[in-house]
């Protein structure tokens, strides 16, 4: 945010037209590429020096943020890659059917709490909104459950009536399964659903994140789907311990699946957030560097010009005396 303001400021600074006001005229004279002979002697380079200092400080901050994100990313990335093993068996058994058509949809949008991380939050929100349009219709109900401060802020603007719950401060401690499962439990107890759709940014590499939708069906819907020739026929070939009926097993599985998928989704999104922050901060530092170069050039040119003028004055004065 600071960078954007600064960039705008810098542009305004460099392009500001000559105005009749002497103070601003002096300022633009320093920065304009053309050397302005009439005002040369009284030019102060203070303004440019201050600006250079502030740009340098901002560059330091963005560089530090990049380093922090990079070092955090490494740990989170390993955990994310390990957590993928949690949902894969579920998808193999129950399948992932994003196109299923049910009455009560709950969209779980995962975003970050902090900003300065590129466009990953708006991507999540955008996908959620289009999914909302896709799933809503007559006699249907779609609700949002939002994780993260940034998603909440964006959703409040135009779809605040469909928000069912919002969760923040999830990432105060490092993410762990216990935390996410308690959260999953809270969500399950408080919303009615036929299908839960979790939206998050899947981490692919430091620069690429794929917005992903994971669908979790309620046990009843799973059963109905399996009767109409779904994937679930396999479940009967498993030997299940304990005296539980198929419906109970399915309910347990659906609950456990939700918490596992949510855990992986939260981790993937945290990982993407760090990656996005890293590249955003990298480009900010580069922009600050470019701006610093431009400012240094104008500064030096002005300084050189005033030195030259002084020399010319001294020499011409001396030659006038001798001549």
């Amino acid at each position, binding site marked *: 945010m600071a960078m954007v303001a600064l960039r705008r400021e810098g542009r305004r600074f460099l392009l500001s037209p000559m105005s009749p006001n002497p103070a601003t005229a002096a300022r633009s004279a320093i920065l304009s590429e053309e050397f302005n002979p009439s005002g040369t002697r009284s030019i102060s380079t203070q303004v440019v020096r201050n600006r250079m200092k502030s740009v340098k400080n901002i560059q330091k901050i963005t560089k530090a943020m990049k380093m922090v994100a990079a070092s955090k990313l490494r740990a989170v990335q390993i955990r994310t890659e390990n957590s993928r093993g949690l949902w894969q068996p579920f998808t193999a058994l129950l399948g992932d059917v994003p196109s299923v058509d049910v009455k009560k949809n709950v969209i779980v949008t995962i975003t970050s709490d902090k900003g300065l991380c590129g466009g990953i939050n708006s991507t999540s929100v955008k996908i959620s909104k289009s999914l909302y349009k896709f799933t809503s219709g007559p006699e249907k109900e779609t609700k949002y459950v939002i994780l993260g401060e940034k998603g909440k802020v964006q959703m409040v603007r135009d779809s605040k009536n469909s928000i069912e719950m919002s*969760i923040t401060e999830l990432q105060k401690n490092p993410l762990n399964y216990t935390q996410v*499962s308690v959260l999953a439990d809270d969500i399950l107890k408080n919303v009615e659903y036929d299908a839960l759709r979790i939206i998050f940014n899947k981490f692919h590499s430091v620069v690429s994140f794929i917005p992903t939708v994971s669908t979790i069906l309620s046990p009843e819907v799973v059963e109905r789907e399996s009767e109409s020739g779904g994937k679930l026929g396999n479940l009967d070939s498993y030997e299940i311990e304990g*005296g539980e009926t198929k419906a109970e097993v399915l309910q347990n599985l659906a609950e456990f699946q939700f918490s596992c998928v949510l855990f992986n989704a939260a981790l993937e999104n945290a990982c993407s957030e760090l990656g996005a922050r890293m590249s955003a901060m990298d480009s900010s530092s580069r922009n600050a560097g470019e701006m610093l170069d431009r400012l240094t050039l104008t500064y030096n040119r002005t300084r050189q010009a005033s030195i030259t003028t002084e020399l010319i004055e001294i020499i011409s004065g001396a030659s006038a005396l001798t001549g």
Partner: protein
Amino acid sequence: MASAVAGSSAAVPFWRAAGMTYITYSNVCASLVRGCLKEPYKSEAATREKVHFAISKWANGKPEKPTIRSDSPEE
């Protein structure tokens, strides 16, 4: 499957009767297993049990006061 058919008339599992979901039940079990560890590993595993988040329900387009869930793995 025979046992499953036999069990169909039986009551729901005790933990579900107590109002728990499978997630809560498995969390309680996991916490018990972590409690069985010996010391250097026990405190390390305990750090993976920390819970902290703020949850707020929405009614009529307005958030209600958030409730903060902190460090309570078992409800």
